[in-house]
């Protein structure tokens, strides 16, 4: 119950922030732009629209996380608004979980809004066969953003907004290369390969949530993929929030 109260408050905070409105407008503008530019794509208009639309959702979502999500907790600590919450009968884990739920809900709203707009565009343009693949890709993009949000909440609980943004961005970038790291680990000598494999597992496995190219080709993915991605996202998020809790539990608010 308490996490949901905090989540509702966090959602309210995020949706009343002008950054979010700007991002939604930018996303819709990007979709409009794809239509204007698709005639220049030499017959690849459909691919262009779907790929840019899906990339837009991910990139704009990441932007929202870096601008707003990474100061979710840090800003409250800085401004001391957190005193009003933690002096009430709520546990620190409940507070962090609530923050994550609220901000994730915000990002899912944005992803769904832009995703439905993209799906609508695809259907209107007569590319209805791509519709399901687009929806699957939007779902995976939402999972990806939830995972990155968990990292942002953790870093925000431990550090300043600027450093949190840098750490989150760093994990995002290395996470995009996690498959390359795994391939590299297989080719390296045993000890070094093990170290690289550990890094590949510490960072989020973001390629698992990427079916943008498949969607651009109109290819749906398997239930196994969706199940593995959903399970992995749930478990990774829970793990990160546990770590955040462990660190936050012993934090003093001077």
């Amino acid at each position, binding site marked *: 119950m308490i996490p949901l109260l905090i989540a509702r408050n966090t959602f309210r905070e995020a949706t009343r922030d002008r950054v979010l409105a700007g991002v939604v407008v930018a996303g819709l503008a990007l979709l409009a732009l794809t239509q204007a530019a698709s005639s220049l*794509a030499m017959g690849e208009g459909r691919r262009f629209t779907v790929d840019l639309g899906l990339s837009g959702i991910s990139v704009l979502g990441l932007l929202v996380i870096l601008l707003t999500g990474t100061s979710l907790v840090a800003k409250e600590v800085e401004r001391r608004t957190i005193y009003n919450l933690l002096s009430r009968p709520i546990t620190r884990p409940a507070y962090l979980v609530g923050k994550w739920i609220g901000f994730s809900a915000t990002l899912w709203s944005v992803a769904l809004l832009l995703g439905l707009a993209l799906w609508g565009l695809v259907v209107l343009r007569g590319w209805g066969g791509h519709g399901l693949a687009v929806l699957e890709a939007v779902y995976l993009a939402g999972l990806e953003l939830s995972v990155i949000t968990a990292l942002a909440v953790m870093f925000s609980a431990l550090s300043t907004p600027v450093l949190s943004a840098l750490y989150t961005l760093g994990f995002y970038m290395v996470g995009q290369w996690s498959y390359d790291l*795994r391939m590299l680990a297989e080719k390296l000598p045993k000890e070094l390969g093990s170290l690289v494999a550990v890094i590949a597992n510490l960072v989020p*496995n973001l390629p*698992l949530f990427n079916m943008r190219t498949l969607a651009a080709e109109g290819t749906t993915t398997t239930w196994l*993929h969706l199940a593995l991605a959903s399970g*992995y996202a749930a478990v*990774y998020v829970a793990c990160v929030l*546990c770590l955040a809790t462990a660190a936050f539990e012993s934090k003093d608010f001077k």
Partner: protein
Amino acid sequence: MSPLATVDSRRRRFLAAWAGALVLGTAAFTLAAAAWRTLPHPHPLEELSYYPSGRFLEPATLGHAATAADLAWLRAVQYYGQHRATDNQFVRMAHVFDILTTLDPSFLPAYFFGAFALAQEGRDFPAAERLMLKGLAANPTSGPLAFQMGFLYYVRPGGRDLRRAAEYFERASRQLDGPPESARFAAFCRQNAGELEVACELWARVERTSPNRYLREIAQREQARIREAVERGRREQAMRRLTTPVVLLKRQT
């Protein structure tokens, strides 16, 4: 009394959080490993293959086209190795090397590797030829590029193009950074293409300019051979019968 009863609730939450993190982390590790094993890996060149041209990609690199080319090069080599080891299907290779060399037209190894991979394993000589011509257009004074172009024609699967090979070997020999063996290769190709008079002149140049005594002796010998064949009216005696190049692709074990 349980040991946990003596620990205050804050510390209990702290320990529970760490325990949770370890268990969930292990679960995440397991799921990620399962995904790695069971799901198809994203095609390493997928993110490049949809761009109609490198021309559209370059602005997106925000001034880092050369770096993007380097990363694309890594992917391309990986792609080649992966398919060379498995199905020997190189469907996207021409497109990707085209993008690579558009991003960084001075990246010579991309032309060398790409052209030979296309011609041999890719079985697409016209694509290889186009790539090398693109390279020469972007780097007109490059001796190594001209030399490799000559060599490409020399090893063309299904039939060597000795005239064109010679043409490019000669071009390479005229460049400042041309490999020293360019003139010799040009002479050899002209000779075996039947252009004995031109070959003779080229051998004479090799004899005049080569610092290597052995090579000078070869040049003298070939000139004598040509002169003798021409005097006898048996030009074919100065020409060697060369094998027809083929591509043999075996799955690596």
